[in-house]
């Protein structure tokens, strides 16, 4: 599924250069549920942006299947995001003026799906995440857990190959967190998705079948040294 080869990402700031990723080599097979952990500023979000075709590396190669994301132009990256990648954000990032169903429909707009089909698929996927009775509610009328379910429905409605979640439970209480993770796990198992979850929460990470740790732009497998002994990554550093 994913292959990252010697990926480096640097940002140039006013008086310094930030190395967000340093020579990352990584392979994520299809259907794996991966948790990415690490300290704030360690490179978790940058790694997720590379995987999600949101950004290109400064050097190295990022592949998603046969697509070389690191060499693709903006139009091609947008096409990959529209068809192959689903995103779930910590702050849900729903469009506040659109209802739950309309928010889900936004993910189908770039695919050119006809209106009736968009509504049918959005209604169906919201039913699967338990929001069949909240179709016409605005985000402000939904709880945090419900909003995140809408965001998950939006990510899944286009039937992507990959689901990328950036702190999906970061703004939820423990009960809701478990509900959302139960849902993600269920969808992962049912649909054979490849799921990458960035999280600070070990309870969330514990559900993954693979854990990556990233600090100072370097990826290692397992927990950080001193808490859980790192083990070699399946591929890469």
């Amino acid at each position: 599924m994913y292959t990252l080869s010697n990926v480096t990402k640097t940002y140039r700031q006013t008086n310094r250069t930030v190395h967000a990723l340093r020579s990352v080599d990584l392979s994520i097979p299809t259907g794996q549920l991966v948790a990415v952990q690490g300290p704030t500023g360690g490179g978790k979000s940058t790694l997720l942006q590379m995987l999600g075709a949101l950004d290109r590396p400064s050097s190295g190669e990022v592949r998603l299947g046969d697509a070389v994301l690191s060499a693709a132009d903006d139009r091609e990256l947008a096409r990959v995001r529209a068809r192959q990648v689903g995103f779930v954000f910590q702050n849900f990032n729903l469009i506040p003026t659109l209802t739950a169903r309309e928010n889900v429909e936004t993910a189908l707009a770039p695919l050119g799906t006809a209106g009736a089909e968009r509504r049918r698929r959005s209604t169906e996927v919201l039913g699967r995440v338990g929001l069949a009775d909240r179709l016409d509610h605005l985000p402000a009328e939904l709880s945090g857990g419900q909003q995140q379910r809408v965001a998950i429905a939006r990510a899944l409605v286009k039937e992507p190959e990959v689901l990328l979640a950036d702190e999906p439970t970061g703004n939820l209480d423990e009960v809701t967190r478990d509900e959302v993770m139960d849902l993600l796990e269920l969808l992962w198992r049912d649909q054979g998705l490849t799921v990458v979850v960035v999280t600070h929460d070990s309870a969330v990470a514990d559900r993954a079948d693979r854990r990556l740790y990233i600090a100072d732009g370097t990826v290692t497998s397992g927990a950080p040294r001193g808490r859980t002994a790192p083990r070699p990554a399946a591929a890469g550093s």
Partner: protein
Amino acid sequence: MFFTYLRRELANRRRQSAVVAAGMALAITLVIIVSSLSAGVEDAQDSALSAVYGVGTDITVSSPAEGPNAGGGGGQRFQFGAEDGERADGSTSVVQSRLHLSPGTASFSADAVDTVRGIADVEAATATLSLTNVTFEGEMPDPQEGGGMVRVAPGGGADGEGGSSFDVTTFSVLGLDPGETGVGPLTSVAVSDGRAPAADDAGTHTAVLDNDYATGAELAVGDTLEIGGTEFEIVGLVASTAATGASAADVYIPLDTAQELAELDGEISDIYVQATSATAIDQVQADIEAALPDATVNTQQDLASTVSGSLATAASLLSNLGTWLSVAVLAAAFLIAALLTMSGVARRTREFGTLKAIGWSNGRVVRQVAGESLVQAVLGGLVGSALGVIGVLAVNAAGITLSSVTDAPAGPEGEPAGGGPVRIGPGSDAAASTADIVLNAPVSVQIVLLAVGLAALGGLVAGASGGWRAARLRPAEALRAVN
């Protein structure tokens, strides 16, 4: 999705939408009112000019009034012999009328008409001779011869005690080709009684009178009128079709007859020219000036400058202040729309970042932002159009009257029209036609469409600038934005 999102966004940002739409509405209201008033004033100017120059005249050709053939330069002389007049009761009554070139005009060879007709893109040309008939009528005591001096008898005269009484009356006479109806003064009149001049009137002593003049002089079809000492049969009355109600002359007679009576054989004072198209006017003017270097060649645009009075003031006000005000408000509305759209995009950075993250292309984001801006502007444009039309209707309902004074130093501009003041004698180098015109500002579909189009353009410019800003956001950076 596009319309759902657009509708929801506009509904959610009512205040910003209202500000953009209101700004655009104000600008469009001004554009429509100024455009319509300009068109109304232009129509009024055309009307004022067509009363004198006829409908469809693009160019007039005349001769400078200060030449040797200028009219009205030396005053009028009436000479009576000792035996002239009718004597009765110790008094002598004398009447004499003279026909001469109108003050402020000059004659030139009629060959110029053929020259003009031979110029490319000249559709039609006709010549006129602008004359003034002056009638001297008086009563004085019988003169008695004696010692080489004229002595007045102690009795007789107008008052029976040796006094005298004189009247001088004038009216304008236009000699014209009676068969020419396509261009010239007859194009702006309609027959109210009798008939119009006809081609076979050439060489005859027939006259057609302006209706207002005939009423004032108590003349009717079938009566006779003395012009230049010759009796003319009145065959028709005509009334001006111009909004001013003014016409080019009091009396119309065949050109050849006019030339003979005024002793100006082969001479004319004006040529009325119609070009084949509006775009050809400038070239035709240049060609005529080249072919007739001594002539004064005026286009309608030149002639418009001869209109003065409140009509000219209104035209000047609209073309200067009105236009600039419209442009300024329109520019301000565009700017406000652009700034508010930019501001809206800045507030929605993460929203657009999210949309790009889920696969929206730059084009789709630009279309969405531009669409929102376009709808706001078009709504403002429609409201502004409605307000503008109401404003124009209100102006029309108010019945604003503008006065026009058409005066000119030479050529047909100098003709007295519609009972305007006629000055005779030394120093009277110009004549003027004064008329009141009720301003009628037209609201055309084109103006409304233009206004809405301008609003749409403003919305697109604002939307495109905002959309461009939204599109160039890198999704990764946009998602980091804190809203």
